[in-house]
């Protein structure tokens, strides 16, 4: 039998020494590997697992029984009291507010980023490299420096306590997504464009009918990341939303935390889990896109 190709990490932390030719080692190698890697994975997930089980414990026993994972008695009422919410609105209300922001922002950022990316990747115009450079610098620009002036501008525009400051900037593209899509469009053969142009296809139709369908994967990646960032965003809502009626999920959770003295830990944990649910769900459904998006953005950077 041919020797199987030695995995690259043969030299890795797993063995620490060169692969022995011994049959015993070959037999126990993988089980040991899986036990170690699996244990580390479990350790990584433990905080989340702990919070999950704690959300079914009675509030006052969460900390007295912190070292036992499973609840002695499963208390579902945490989810009921948590869902009833805080600040006069149900948690569902906050979920809905977040969803509105997420959907509008994501639509805006994906469409505008795709348009811009097509411009950078496929059109020739004076100053293209300059603007592309500007975009790459913006990608690395610390956001803190525009925090204060943006707040002032949005206040003067009368946008306080509306979702405008959070949603509207998304309609002007996000450098990270533009970059991701430019990389993606560049992998599409240019002959396709030329053929379409000869057939009398204008640039806009070329973009909509030929390029867009081919970059679906990167559009999906951008949409997923936009969903995460908007769903988890705290700074935007903290700055711009000031009535509980408009609060998002992160603000709802923050209110739970601020009223921690009421020690409704069970409800707070339950709603923390609820807020993570869509994120984890999307992650498991679309992880291929996410992994590819992250990996390629890094490599080609």
């Amino acid at each position, binding site marked *: 039998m041919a020797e199987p190709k*030695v*995995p*690259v*990490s043969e*030299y*890795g932390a797993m063995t620490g020494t*060169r692969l022995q030719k011994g049959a015993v080692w070959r037999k126990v190698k*993988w089980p040991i590997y899986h036990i170690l*890697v*699996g244990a580390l*994975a479990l350790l*990584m997930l433990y*905080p*989340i697992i702990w*919070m999950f089980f704690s959300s079914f414990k009675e509030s006052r026993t969460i*900390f007295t029984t*912190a*070292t036992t994972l499973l609840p002695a008695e499963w208390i579902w009422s945490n989810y009921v009291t948590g869902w009833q919410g805080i600040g006069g609105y149900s948690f569902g209300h906050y979920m809905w507010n977040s969803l509105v922001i997420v959907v509008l922002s994501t639509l805006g950022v994906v469409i*505008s980023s795709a*348009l*811009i990316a097509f*411009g950078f990747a496929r*059109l*020739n*115009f004076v100053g293209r490299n300059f*603007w592309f450079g500007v*975009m790459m610098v913006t990608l*690395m620009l*610390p*956001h*803190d*420096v*525009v925090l*204060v002036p943006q707040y*002032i*501008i949005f206040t003067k525009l009368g946008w306080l306590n509306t979702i405008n400051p959070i949603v509207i*900037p998304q309609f*002007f*593209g996000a450098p990270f997504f533009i970059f991701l899509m430019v990389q993606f469009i560049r992998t599409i053969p240019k002959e396709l464009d030329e053929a379409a142009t000869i057939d009398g296809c204008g*640039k806009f139709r070329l*973009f909509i009918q030929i390029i867009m369908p081919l970059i679906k994967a990167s559009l999906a990646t951008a949409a997923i990341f936009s969903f995460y960032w908007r769903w*988890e965003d705290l*700074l935007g809502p*903290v*700055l711009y939303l000031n009535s509980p009626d408009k609060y998002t999920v*992160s603000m709802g*959770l923050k209110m739970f*935390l*601020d009223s921690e003295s009421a020690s409704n*830990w069970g409800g707070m*944990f339950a709603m*923390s889990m609820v807020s*993570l649910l869509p994120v984890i769900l999307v*992650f*498991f459904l679309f*992880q291929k896109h996410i992994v590819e998006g*992250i*990996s390629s953005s*890094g*490599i080609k950077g």
Partner: protein
Amino acid sequence: MRNHSLKANLTGYAFISPFIIGFLAFTLIPMFISLYLSFTSYNLFSPPRWVGFNNFEKMFTGDPKYWSSVKVTLYYVFIGVPLRLTFALFVAMILNTGSKMIGTYRTIYYLPSIIGGSVAVSIMWRNIFSEQGIVNGLLMALGAAPVQWFGDPGAALSMLITLSVWQFGSSMLIFLAGLKNISPEMYEAASVDGAHPVRKFFSITLPLLSPIILFNLIMQTISAFMTFVPAYIISKGEGGPMDGTMLYSLYLFRQAFMFNNMGYASAMAWVMLIFIGVLTLILFKTSKMWVFYESEGGR
């Protein structure tokens, strides 16, 4: 020869116009406003008053809280980022095998990064480190004394750093993709020459990964400097205990939006911008000494 007709230019600019407008409206103009404000005293309600370099003077000479936030942030960045990247590289190397389970492991290890920015996770972190939380439970089980994570500034900061290291996932994915690009023949050739695993790591893996390490280092450093949510949630917006979790961004936020010192906060933002800019420049410049670009050998 490129042919830039008027029409081609107009079409090009039409497509990228959202970026240009957004850049001017939400980045460039705000940056100029911020620069101007950094030389003023401004509380949002009365017009800005020009005060010259007062804000900067106060920052550097008259505000011990500022320096303590600088110190905390530098600890956070210069301990947290290297730890995070080392851990990411370590896990990426472990996972870079032919095993069929790799996809599953990769997913699990990446999960914390996906949910890491959320308030829920910061709340979770706050609670596993609480006085009777599992971390202290574990310490006591091991025979160690429990730690007052919220009573000691150093302990509180290490709690924040652990949270950041826990989210090593995206760097790990980038490293993993990089490792896959290294051809196995390199290692085989090295094995034939009798190279040890450690030797192979230092003379093959590390040099070939160095461009990716540089990229990760820069991006992670910038984002670490701007960390806000964990510090804000874990300290309930106070930056305590004893300013132990008062990261720069949190202090800036408090100055701007709790004390309405918009001018001072703008000055803080510009100092940070310049500092990060210089740091990035230094990283790029010194990278010539340690980053290895394969293509250069052939030129």
